[in-house]
């Protein structure tokens, strides 16, 4: 994949002003952007996904402009074709696991039925060992099951790339290690380009073919190794 990001965005909230001024390009299959909390990582990822409109700049994926303030291009999130794993997973609480995963497959004004038969959903349920819990709602699931459901929901649409927002921060340390292994195995298997943002140095060393660092809304010189990151 090639991802070109040159954006500027000023955000005002609670009397505080934050400036996001991000410029980078990556051609790696797996890119990890590391940064402390409050550096603007989530805002940047939202801008790439089309959930936050930059004030100016350009975002291009494989040469196709997703956003370009000069050319008045601004593809809506639904047209950008990314899979997005939210930090807190953002599973729909009123829908069961099966409905959550099949959510994006069904267009129109109605949610898929509780027992909707969707072949792709069955495949992902099976692949992520969620068949047993297909009829349960998110609040009845374990942390690992929640994450697998959210991943399956993002992948079932066959996105062109996966955007991961702090994928392991909601998990307890023990589970975190296991889910890291799981995600790595998955990425190796389906070979999908991904962009991850994290504040955890372990994620950086584990997943980053290309490593960038975001600080105070700007991309700065990336650290060379995980050890160097830990000393930041």
């Amino acid at each position: 994949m090639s991802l070109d990001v040159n954006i500027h965005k000023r955000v005002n909230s609670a009397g505080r002003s934050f400036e996001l001024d991000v410029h980078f390009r990556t051609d790696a299959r797996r890119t990890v952007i590391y940064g402390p909390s409050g550096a603007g990582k989530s805002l940047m990822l939202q801008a790439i996904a089309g959930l936050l409109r930059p004030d100016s700049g350009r975002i291009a994926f494989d040469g196709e402009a997703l956003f370009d303030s000069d050319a008045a291009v601004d593809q809506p999130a639904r047209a950008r074709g990314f899979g997005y794993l939210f930090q807190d997973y953002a599973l729909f609480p009123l829908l069961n696991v099966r409905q959550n995963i099949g959510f994006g497959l069904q267009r129109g004004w109605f949610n898929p039925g509780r027992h909707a038969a969707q072949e792709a959903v069955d495949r992902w349920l099976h692949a992520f060992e969620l068949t047993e819990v297909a009829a349960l709602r998110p609040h009845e699931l374990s942390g690992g099951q929640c994450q697998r459901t959210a991943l399956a929901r993002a992948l079932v649409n066959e996105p062109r790339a996966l955007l991961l927002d702090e994928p392991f921060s909601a998990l307890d340390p023990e589970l975190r290690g296991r889910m890291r292994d799981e995600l790595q195995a998955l990425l190796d298997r389906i070979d999908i380009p991904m962009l991850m943002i994290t504040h955890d140095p372990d994620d950086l060393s584990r997943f980053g073919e290309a490593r960038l660092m975001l600080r105070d809304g700007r991309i700065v010189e990336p650290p060379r190794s995980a050890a160097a990151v830990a000393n930041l």
Partner: protein
Amino acid sequence: MDSSAWIALALSLKVAGCATALNLVLGVGTGWLLARKRFPGRELLDAALTLPMVLPPTVLGYYLLVVIGKRGWLGAWLYETFGMQLIFTWQGAVIAATLVAFPLVLKAARAAFEGVDPQLERAARVLGLGEWAVFLRVTLPMAWNGILAGVLLAFARALGEFGATLMVAGSIPGKTQTLSIAVYEAVQAGQDSTANTLVLITSITCIAVLLSSGRLSQARSAKVMR
């Protein structure tokens, strides 16, 4: 028993039902707007739309007469253009009841929409949904419990509406004389037995509304937990 009592009950239910249906659409639309959109004067608009909750119904009735009365700016136009007159009609009573009960739906809807995590809406957008689908499939189902509570209160409020309705629609038996107005008229005329019947019917109707609303929200929460 007096058949006019049943006519008044039927009229009350018709007026309150129409007012509630109107408020469902208006209150949900405005509540969503106030909860999700940032625009200058947002809180002022909220305050203005909440006024009917605190103003005396007679004052509201007066305002309505100024607007939709025969010589009111909207009323005169309606009369000249369509030959339509709202004063002293059951439709006029619907407008009065709608206005009085509106803040109850608005407040409930705004609070319910503000309680829906915007992250869920973002997730739905990334998954390929348009804005209408996001609203109908994510936002509205999440907010529905809170909205429903407001809608039931609004129905009860509309059913008991007296002041504004009397000023706008008057008290024409069989046409605009709702239950609450009929009670007043019966007492004024010294018709104690009629008043007794009307009060009894009103009380039973309100208990029925409360019971069914309780069952409705129970069934709803059971469904959520299932």
